[in-house]
């Protein structure tokens, strides 16, 4: 009896509810959590929820939604969006200490959208889109306007299906000042079919997520091939969330961690709508010879793959596998180091970058970007995208790119100068990075004086310059196999891989904070007060002079001053007054 029931259960789970809905408009949900210990001891948790819908959205005919959120579907259909990428990030991914990020995003809000070729007025659609998104996600995306929007020509290629890449259909904007908090997380969670009621999303507890070194949530919508023949289009919505927990400081000096310690929750079930629900834990051995770490409970399986040019091993917990919850009702993945790790060397990522502002005073300055290629023998090109607000006037003739002491001529430059109050500077360059080198790119600028109404609240805080973007195909150390996107884990399948020998990396540098000459905003009022007081005093004395009647007064014994003067005169031996 028990065996039979189990068999029935197994059968049911194999044909989970996500796959049961056959016919047109089929949709499926996959959820995934990737836990990876970072080189310096922190832990990164990357959630991915992927809704795939086999329907043609932009036709407008489809208006019946099941797993795909209606709000986003209507937006895509109404505004002719082909691809939408929105990230909201708090904190900065420290590439040097944490290694290559699975999905990096610039701090603040980043939005880039490819529109359909049928959209006639792209700027209007872009404006409308950013306003609606700001309503959906409670973010200040409505501050996206012509002064911070650019149309890159090389950096942001469509990630999904695309025929023809006319750059006029692309818009890109970053709001580095945007602060991400709970009010942005709640609408994001609401888009998940299971909300935060079941599945991996139960771990998404705001108070823990924002008690972290890095928090980045994203929404990616793109068209993908429905099957291998690619005759029909499906739409994919990926909701990703990356958090980095500082386990070292919260774990009393130990680098051990568990789901409960990080999220103060454990997993009890998979989202019943998901056709796949997995937890991956990165257990790649650092040194080949000895196993240092231990995960409990024992994983359902072990998955090996080449991710970002590195061979990696993952412990996999399949939440849909009934054996997982046999022994205990909840899953609390625990990670232990067997003996204190000798914190000797941290692996240096092949590509990383830094950026800073130099110079003194409030008139001129210099933006310098340092790009490192630590690959021992391979050179590769990188596309650098800089967007600088108009109030920093770039001197393009001062642009210098120096590698190993010699000037490095970029093979492609696209520069769009700023127009005051109309559009920002856009600088795109394709730079060849020689093996084992660092490249310094510097450009000087002058600070503009703003009108007094253009200063934001708290102008002395400074003005943000958004991160510059590095896109590169980084040569892989170990060869990668071509994998089927539908079968491989989600964390490997957002960016299309070109071939087996290299992998795509997009890096963001630090956002910059630049001080502009800021006037004393209380000065006008001070001037008004001062002049008014002077005028009033003059007026008062004139008034008194004109209205008082004067008459001669009989000399009296005199006041205090006179008596004092007489005392002094007495001492001096002079006759009193």
């Amino acid at each position, binding site marked *: 009896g028990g065996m039979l*029931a189990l068999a*029935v*259960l197994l059968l*049911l789970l194999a044909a989970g*509810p996500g796959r*049961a*809905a056959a016919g047109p408009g089929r949709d499926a949900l996959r959820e995934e959590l990737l836990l990876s210990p970072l080189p310096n001891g922190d832990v990164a948790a990357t959630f991915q929820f992927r809704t795939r819908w086999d329907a043609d959205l932009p036709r407008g005919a489809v*208006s*019946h*939604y*099941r*797993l795909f*959120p*209606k*709000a*986003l579907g*209507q*937006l895509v*259909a*109404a*505004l002719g969006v082909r691809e939408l990428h929105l990230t909201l990030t708090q904190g900065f991914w420290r590439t040097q200490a944490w290694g290559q990020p699975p999905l990096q995003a610039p701090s603040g809000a980043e939005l880039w959208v490819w529109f359909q070729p049928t959209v006639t007025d792209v700027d209007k659609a872009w404006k409308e889109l950013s306003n*609606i998104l700001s*309503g*959906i996600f409670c973010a200040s995306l409505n501050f996206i306007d012509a002064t911070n929007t650019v149309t890159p020509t090389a950096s942001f290629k469509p990630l999904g299906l695309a025929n023809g890449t006319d750059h006029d259909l692309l818009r890109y904007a970053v709001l580095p000042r945007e602060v991400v908090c709970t009010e942005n997380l709640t609408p994001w969670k*609401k888009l998940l*079919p*299971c*909300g935060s*009621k*079941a599945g991996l999303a139960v771990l998404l507890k705001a108070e823990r997520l924002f008690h972290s070194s890095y928090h980045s949530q994203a929404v990616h919508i793109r068209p993908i091939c429905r099957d291998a023949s690619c005759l029909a289009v499906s739409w994919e919505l990926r909701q990703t969330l990356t958090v980095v927990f500082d386990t070292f400081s919260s774990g009393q000096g130990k680098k051990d961690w568990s789901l409960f310690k990080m999220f103060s929750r454990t997993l009890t*079930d998979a989202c*019943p*709508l998901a056709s796949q629900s997995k937890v991956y834990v990165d257990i790649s051995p650092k040194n080949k010879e000895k196993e240092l770490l231990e995960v409990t409970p024992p994983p359902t399986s072990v998955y090996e793959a080449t991710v970002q040019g590195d061979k990696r091993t993952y412990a996999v917990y399949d939440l849909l596998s009934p054996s997982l919850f046999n022994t205990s009702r909840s899953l609390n993945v625990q990670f232990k180091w067997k003996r204190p790790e000798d914190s000797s060397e941290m692996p240096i990522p092949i590509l990383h970058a830094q950026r800073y502002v130099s110079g003194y005073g409030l008139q001129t300055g210099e933006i310098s970007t340092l790009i490192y290629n630590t690959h021992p023998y391979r050179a590769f090109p990188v596309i650098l995208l800089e967007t600088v607000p108009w109030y920093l006037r770039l001197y393009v003739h001062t642009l210098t790119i120096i590698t190993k002491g010699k000037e490095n001529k970029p093979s492609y430059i696209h520069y769009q100068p700023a127009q005051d109050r109309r559009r920002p500077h856009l600088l795109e360059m394709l730079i060849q990075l020689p093996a084992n080198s660092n490249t310094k790119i510097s450009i000087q600028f002058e600070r503009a004086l703003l009108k007094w109404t253009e200063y934001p609240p708290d102008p002395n805080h400074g003005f943000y310059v958004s991160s510059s973007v590095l896109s590169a195909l980084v040569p892989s150390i170990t060869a990668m196999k071509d994998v089927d996107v539908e079968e491989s884990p989600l964390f490997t399948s957002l960016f299309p891989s070109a071939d087996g020998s290299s992998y795509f990396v997009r890096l963001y540098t630090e956002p910059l904070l630049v001080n502009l000459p800021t006037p004393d905003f209380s000065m006008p*009022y001070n001037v*008004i*007060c001062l002049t*008014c*007081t002077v*005028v*009033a*005093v003059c*007026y*008062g004395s004139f*008034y*008194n002079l004109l*209205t008082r009647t004067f008459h001669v007064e009989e000399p009296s014994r005199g006041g205090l001053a006179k008596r004092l003067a007489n005392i002094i005169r007495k001492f001096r031996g002079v006759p009193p007054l």
Partner: protein
Amino acid sequence: AAQFQLSVPVAVVFAPGSLPRDPLRPLPFRDVREMEIPVNVRTSVTSRYEMLYRSTTAQEEAALDAATAREAVAALHPLQDAALGSLTMYVVPETSPLLPQGINAYVGKHRSALVRAAGTLPALRSRLQQLTQVMSFTASSITAALSDRVPDGQPGPDARRNLKSSLGYEITFSLLNPDPKSHDVHWAIEDAVTRYVQPVLDKLSLVANFSVDSQILYYAVLGVTPRYDKESSSFLLSAHSLPHVINPVEARLGSSAASLYPVLNFLLYIPERSHSPLYIQDKDGAPVSTNAFHSPRWGGIVVYNVEAPASPQASLPLHVDVDMARVMEVFLAQLRLLFGLSREELPPEFLLESPGNEGLADWELDRLLWAHTVENIATVATTLTSLAQLLDKIGNIVIKDDVASEVYRAVASAQSAMDKLATGHLHSAFQASKEAATSSERAFFDPSLLHLLYFPDDQKFAIYVPLFLPMAVPILLSLAKIIRETRQKKKEPTKVD
């Protein structure tokens, strides 16, 4: 002060042998009757019934020979004036077999009715008037339409029930499945929309634009925990707790991102396994037969109980296919209620033909148009009045040319709508009122007319306080001195005496 005059052209056609004993004049003749509908002090509505009395033509006579009223009305339909708002009443003899016993009027699904002849003209007139009001507008329907827009109007008991007039509506059907672990619910919404909803909306497309969509929400729970009733071993949701049901659900529904039209929500709620079966109780504690309720101006909710499986060991989740015909019947009834088209408060001697698949008779559409036209004009009046108030408040506000032209257009369209109403051209009146509403809204919500863009005068004064205050000190001091001196002068003579 708005003076509405609503004219309804009515053709009264006498079948042979139905003429009252005391006709005013020989047929055909015209007769106009006016009626005042009191709304409030500033608004008055005059309804004007333009009756054209005539006798039947040969064709109409042949059509009236049909066996049943239904067939007769159907045969008469191609012979009538098809204009919106105009009505045709066929007076049949008192002994006519077309109308069943005790029924005095039969209202067809288009714009015509059969009326049983009354002996005298006044008796017939009162019957005709009652019928005309049913088929066009009543005092209460007009007052309800005006209640929101006209300042200090007294809202009636059901004044706030009907939807506000708008250029478009979004209809959203949502399936709420709070327990996807136990219920795997499927609904053939696409098919149900084309089969049941689309015919109604095609009919209503004259009134507004409609868009329909649907979604499925999982883990969406009602805000109220139902009470367990041991007797019936079911869960009960009492009427007084229903207001608390909607709010938590509303947060999940999500507003429509791409349009600004009001949303009508129709929710199908599948209770959790641990809370089913779930029944809604009315105020008296009796179960509601439809197991549904509606919220004015918001939408409706239907609770759909899933039958418990025969064997408790049945595997979960249960596959549930929703019976869409049953659900859509309730939703369409709720849709009619939301538009204020209930058929309840009719006199018992009136028989209405069922509107069939379209869900809406032509004269019901007219009723909607009458009410919405009046409401639109009233909206335009209030919008422009508040715009004028704003301009009065800020003297130096800048009115751009396009805003001015929108205001002129709104006034002209509203005027033309009033004229068209007075002459009985309902369709063009409604179109004009829609244009007027659009123009006035566009003028009112123009970004250049933002109140905050203008520097308020009281703050200007605050800036000059540092000037005025020290200047006031010597003036006030000398004033005080003058007062003191005059007082002393008054006192001094009494001292001398």
